[in-house]
């Protein structure tokens, strides 16, 4: 289990847990991203801006602060 920040671009991961506030979890859930979701990391440039993940064809930018709290497992 790693933070999603540590995953390279173009890898597929399964979300294990999302720490942090209610607002963030719900915001992600509205885009269909929650515990158990399998998403693709589209863009992850270390130290440079947010991550972009793809979930069922929707691209979502996630700030690094939020991303740090998302624990994933590579699949």
């Amino acid at each position, binding site marked *: 289990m790693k933070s999603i920040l540590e995953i390279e671009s173009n890898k597929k991961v399964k979300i294990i847990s999302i720490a942090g506030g209610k607002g963030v979890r719900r*915001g992600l859930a509205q885009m269909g991203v929650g515990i158990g979701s399998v998403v693709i990391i589209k863009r992850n440039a270390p130290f440079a801006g947010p991550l972009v993940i793809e979930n069922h064809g929707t691209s979502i930018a996630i700030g690094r602060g939020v991303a740090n709290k998302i624990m994933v497992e590579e699949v």
Partner: protein
Amino acid sequence: MRIALVGQPNSGKSTIFNAVAGYKSATSNLPGTTVKYTESKVRLNGKVYELVDFPGTYSLSSTNEAEFEVGKYLIEGDFDLIINIIDASQLGRSLPLTLELLEIGIPIVVALNMIDEASRKGIEINVDLLTNQLGVPIQTTIASKNIGVRELFILARKVIEAELPIRQKKIKCQRDVEEVIEEMEEVVNQKIPLSSPYPPRFLAIKLLEDDDYYRSFATGRNGVHISNTISKLQMKLVSLRGKPQDSVMVLERHAIAMDIYNQVVKVGTPQKDWREIIDNVVMHKYAGYFILIVILLTFFYGVFELGAVIEEFLLTGFEQVNNNLPQYFIPDSLLFYFIKSGLWGIGGGVAIVLPYLIPFLIGLTLLEDIGYLPRVAYLMDAFMHRIGLHGTSIVPAVLGYGCNVPAVMAIRILPSRRDKIISAIIASMVPCSARSIVIFGLIAFYLGPFWAFMIYVFNIVIIALTGKILSILMPEISPGMVLEIPPYRFPSFQVIRKKTWFRIKEFIMVAWPILILGSIILGMLEYFNIVEIIDQVLSPLTAILGLPVAVGTTLIFGVLRKELALIMLTQAIGTTNVASVMSINQIVTFTVFITFYIPCVATMAVLVREVGKSWMLFLLVFTLILATVLSLTIHILGNFFF
């Protein structure tokens, strides 16, 4: 009869609204732009319907103010029909909202919009099967090309007039979750009085979602007892699904949506998408910023070069009329002052404001509709973090370049009060199109577009510092950014035209009369020699800044509308050739002052509504001091440069 247009951000909802309602609303690629409801009357088969365009929303929960208001107004607003606009290329993600809408119990017609985009992505939707699954009539549309929109409204009329049998149903969850919902619903039925506007099942689901507003609505009436039951049932869901109570229901809806999606969609091979390749460059960690700067520079040069040619042409004509004025009226009479100042207001609007405003608005609309702005938010996230905010806060800030009023309203998409306050302050410091007119008309015109660009850069630096200081003063961990990056879209010529026209119309109807009236008032003040008194009162300020005494009055009028400051400046100094009266140093100092000092009255009003009177007053004092300090610094430094 009332029809609600509801859909997720970027679903093309406002495009459909524009197609039938004419020049009444604005569409945009940024989530939450249409924070105001826009209403219009629509004639269908001889009957007039009221059409309400709702802000784009992902769900009806109260995650943020904008979403919460949609849900509340939908239920309490007495609607006869909901038209649910769905981006067909994002069907899976769009259906959860449809499922929520079904819970309200108002008849629904679904528009599967951007069906062409879906087939490009290789998504083939079995519309008949989807109609069966949801029990609602469906029409496929391509709103940007006006395909299927007419049919959509014919379908809507048929449903309202009950020509079609309504087979709408509520989609049930899986049995274990469904049992919990039913248990909750029973409690709601027992404890919540019948006068509650919310359908019991809808309320039950919202309570299970741990939705703050609906929870306080329910517990406020029934105290601890129902609160305990809610928590107990929430925990039951948590143990069933192993997900936190705040997102378990939302994700459950997504699971159902994906289930429907998998049944009705056949995914073929997508056509090669060139847009992915574009994003590799546009969102690149170095190239992205380079492109950002190139796009902005092109934008400024484009607007300026186009505007300057037209301005010069129009101004020559205007000056001629103005110079001939003494031949027709007795100079220095009251009538002469009245005509002259009125003409100045009219001519200023045509010759100075419109030449820049029109290309500026077209450019901004183009950037919005292509979908570039969310990419700006992406690129700026790291920067925004430095100043204690996150990328989503860039949304109000970027909107501010058009007009500060909707920008301040856009803070509603932010979840925390602290982020709202800081973003509102930042948004109202962004040079809006009115202030841009001053920057273009003075700086770009007399010093060149590069220096105008530098004013914007300078403004961003100051805003960043302000944001940094505010976030140090108000330490709080902000929840962070979760923002959809929509695909690029080809802007439709028709939509751009309508949107630009809509905004220009706003200038003509609202701002221009103020400009003319302001000019006439200034003319009258001049005639009765009151201007001198005002200038005298403000002379300490103008003297410190090294500005001509005559500009004092224009600073006051600029509070009404920022363009007014420019028109008044030319009027006060008696020529449109500003450089003949003011030095370059003075022009720069004046522009910097106008750019930074207090927001216009309309922005103040909306600030009071969104963040409260005390924050508005704070901003008033703060920007006044800031503008003085900055323009003074520029004035002193300018002595070395200009």
